[in-house]
């Protein structure tokens, strides 16, 4: 087993400050770093010895013997315990949960994000199937803390088994409903969840609180339940490991992986890298980034995807269409390089609005504003290929004119989708709306 590396910044906000020193013995659940501003406590995820403390991480040498016991957090109100446990958003963003749910809603909504929208991921839905009681218990705490009257669990209709389990458990919960989502990207985007569940279209700069709601990932809700009911600090993560791994493309879902475990250890646990692969993505195919074998996972890491090898385009001219749904320009440029293409032209989706912090957010997630103008620009710039990071609907629009103009279209997620046996994002063949009755068959094709 590799050393455990606890990054000091695993959340939105400032890095934490270490509260242990080199040589200290730590247990599972020992507080090792505290927030310096917006942030969340960080706990050791193993029994071991602090070996090194650098600017951005604490390195722990784990003991041979590992017990399941952990140091419990002290009792308090549910909000105090969730804060103490250092829970952050597990869907990827990593926003400190105690800050988010301390929302003072006025008879508002908790929207549980169980969209699991990134291609090939399974751990969220599997958890709902496995421990729905934990989700409901956590949800009740979150509702109480946030002052919400109602909760809506947003889940894709394709997950029939999970939906049936949910329907059964919320049968006697008048305050909790479920909302079925179509199987298109990006239904899990925060504002898309608000729009789908409540019918309110938020501006990119607005938070769900503007719609009197809090959007929270389903695993995060379960971690809240663990913090309150089991006094458990947040030091473990569920994730999906999938792709070019010995044994095939099936998903490997790992439960309660100690935070700080190396990518290498997880891939070895799954079966080991196949000889031929392209890159390893930490996070989803759309929003994740390339990582290395020695990197550690964080509290908000949802997936490790080992992709197909990249084609060699031998320096062909490639245009980049940057979208808020996929990678930023830097990530797209990284992929263009890996395809051995020459970056020739950069366009932005019309709706990918730049935010104050430099990131981009979509004005109307999942509803295309038209792309033919960009395609014409790519054509004029002499591109042979284009690579796009768009959502299902926008990719469809690109496909309506791109190939006819002689542009060869790649999607940012292609090499990952091929490795997780997910359909490529090209032409859209499913409806953007689904009937809320589970038994009504929409024109949705199976994944």
């Amino acid at each position, binding site marked *: 087993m590799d050393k455990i590396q606890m990054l000091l910044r695993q959340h939105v906000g400032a890095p934490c400050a270490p509260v242990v020193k080199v040589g200290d013995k730590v247990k599972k659940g020992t507080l090792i770093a505290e927030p310096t501003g917006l942030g969340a406590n960080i706990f050791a995820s193993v029994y071991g010895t602090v070996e090194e403390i650098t600017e951005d991480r604490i390195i722990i040498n784990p003991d041979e013997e590992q017990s399941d016991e952990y140091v419990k957090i002290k009792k308090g109100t549910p909000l105090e315990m969730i804060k103490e446990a250092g829970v952050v958003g597990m869907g990827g963003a990593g926003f400190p949960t105690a800050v988010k749910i301390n929302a003072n809603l006025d008879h508002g909504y908790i929207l549980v994000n169980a969209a699991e929208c990134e291609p090939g991921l399974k751990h969220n839905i599997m958890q709902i199937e496995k421990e729905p009681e934990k989700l409901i218990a956590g949800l009740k705490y979150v509702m109480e803390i946030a002052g919400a009257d109602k909760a809506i669990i947003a889940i894709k209709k394709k997950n029939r088994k999970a939906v049936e389990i949910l329907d059964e458990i919320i049968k006697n919960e008048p305050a909790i409903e479920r909302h079925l989502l179509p199987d298109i990207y990006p239904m899990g985007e925060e504002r898309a969840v608000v729009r789908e569940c409540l019918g309110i279209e938020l501006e990119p700069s607005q938070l769900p609180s503007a719609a009197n709601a809090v959007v929270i990932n389903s695993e995060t809700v379960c971690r809240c339940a663990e913090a309150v009911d089991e006094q458990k600090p947040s030091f473990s993560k569920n994730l999906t490991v999938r792709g070019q791994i010995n044994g095939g493309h099936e998903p490997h879902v790992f439960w309660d992986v100690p935070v700080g475990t190396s990518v290498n250890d997880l891939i070895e646990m799954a079966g080991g890298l196949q000889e031929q692969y392209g890159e390893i993505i930490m996070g989803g195919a759309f929003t994740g980034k390339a990582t290395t074998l020695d990197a550690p996972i964080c509290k908000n890491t949802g997936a490790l995807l080992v992709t197909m090898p990249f084609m060699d385009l031998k320096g062909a001219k490639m245009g980049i269409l940057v979208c808020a749904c996929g990678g930023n320009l830097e990530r797209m440029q990284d992929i263009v390089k890996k395809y051995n293409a020459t970056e020739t032209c950069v366009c932005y989706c*019309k709706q990918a609005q730049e935010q104050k912090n430099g990131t981009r957010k979509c004005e*109307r997630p999942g*509803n*295309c*504003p*038209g*792309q*033919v*103008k960009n395609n*014409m620009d790519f054509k004029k710039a002499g591109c042979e290929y284009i690579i796009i990071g768009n959502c299902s*609907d*926008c990719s*469809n*629009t690109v496909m*309506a*004119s791109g190939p*006819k*103009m002689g542009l060869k279209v790649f999607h940012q997620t292609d090499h990952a989708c091929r490795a997780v046996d997910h359909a490529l994002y090209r032409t*859209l063949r499913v*409806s*953007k*709306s689904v009937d809320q009755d589970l038994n009504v068959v929409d024109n949705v094709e199976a994944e």
Partner: protein
Amino acid sequence: MSITAETAKQHANDPAVLCCRAEEGTVLEPANFEDPAIFPDLIDSGLLNIDGALTLGQVLNGKTKLTKTVDSLTAITPAIAEGFDAAEVAEEEVVEEVAEAAPVAAAPVAAAPAAAGTIKLHIGEGKDIDIEIPAGLGGGAVAVPVAEAAAPAAVAAAPAAEVAEEKVVRELTRKHYNITEVKRGPETKIEGTVLYIREGIEEEAVASQDLVTSMKIEIITPELYHTYSETVMDIQPIATKEDECPLGEGYTRVLDGVVTVVTGTTDEGIQIAEFGSSEGYLDENMQWNRPGAVDKGETMIKYFVTIKNGKNMERPGPIAAHSAVDFVTAEIRNAMKKDLPETADSEQVLKQVRRPGKKKIVIVKEIMGQGAMHDNFLFPSEPVGVLGARPNVDLGNVPVCASPLEVMDGCIHALTCIGPASKEMS
């Protein structure tokens, strides 16, 4: 790329082509459509076929639905849509004929209430302009007394209507008083045809506004027109209401032969509204005798206001300059109420008349409402005053109905940024 409602209006007669995939049952809106500006390229490259396409004007009626799920760059044809406007085609042809017959005519073509409870105005002048106003807002719409002559080429036959009695809705009497000289004196008053402005009033005006640091009053008589001036922020008539009657009604006392000219810079000399500012010699810059400008021969009371550095492009700065000037004008208004005789040198009676059976005319005037100097104060309690007024930007730039008499009585106090050359003064 999807288009906005404004672009859709401009292209009402262009083919309606979807920018993106749209599903059966979708009620079409501007965001569904591709910008017609790029169609020629698309047609050239074989990407687009617009045979049999309906126009944007036909399908953007709020009720056109797709009967089939179709992909982007599909032209909307009757085969895949329902609820579109067939009538628009005919109207379009009529308009084209009119345009050919009388290309210069700027005439309201039709003002018929449309089905959905809106008043739809169609104005054909080579380019099409469509205006829709919720019916409720049109309730106060009134005929402008002088505007009848402006519609000589009314094409559509007026509906035969019974000739009924004309009715005067409102009346405004302007009492004009000549001023031949403006002087400084121990108190603000009017004696005969001489207006005195109190000496030292500048300090009080400055003290009334936090952001104003100094004020200088210059009396510019015609001999002094070749005077350098900082940027002209506004030119205002000097008028006051009699007996507290509201703007647009009753009696208004107006001083003839004298106007207020507001100018200003920051402390360090940057023009307020350095954005096409109009500093320079007054006689070289002034477009004399135009609406909103000074008439040749008038005496100007020119205020040079300085405001704190950095405030020239922020909303409170220009407003403070205007408010400081109004501090002085308010004192002149009080003198007008007190010192002027009941009988004026001349009187002008303006009537707003409703003529049943005749066409109703609404004049739509765009005014600025961005805040700062790109704004207007609406409905002050005194003509072109500050007190009681609402900045247009604070009203949310919504349509505001004013009676023609209110407009003529100074209900719009302009905070415009540039000289009378291109933007309007009060």
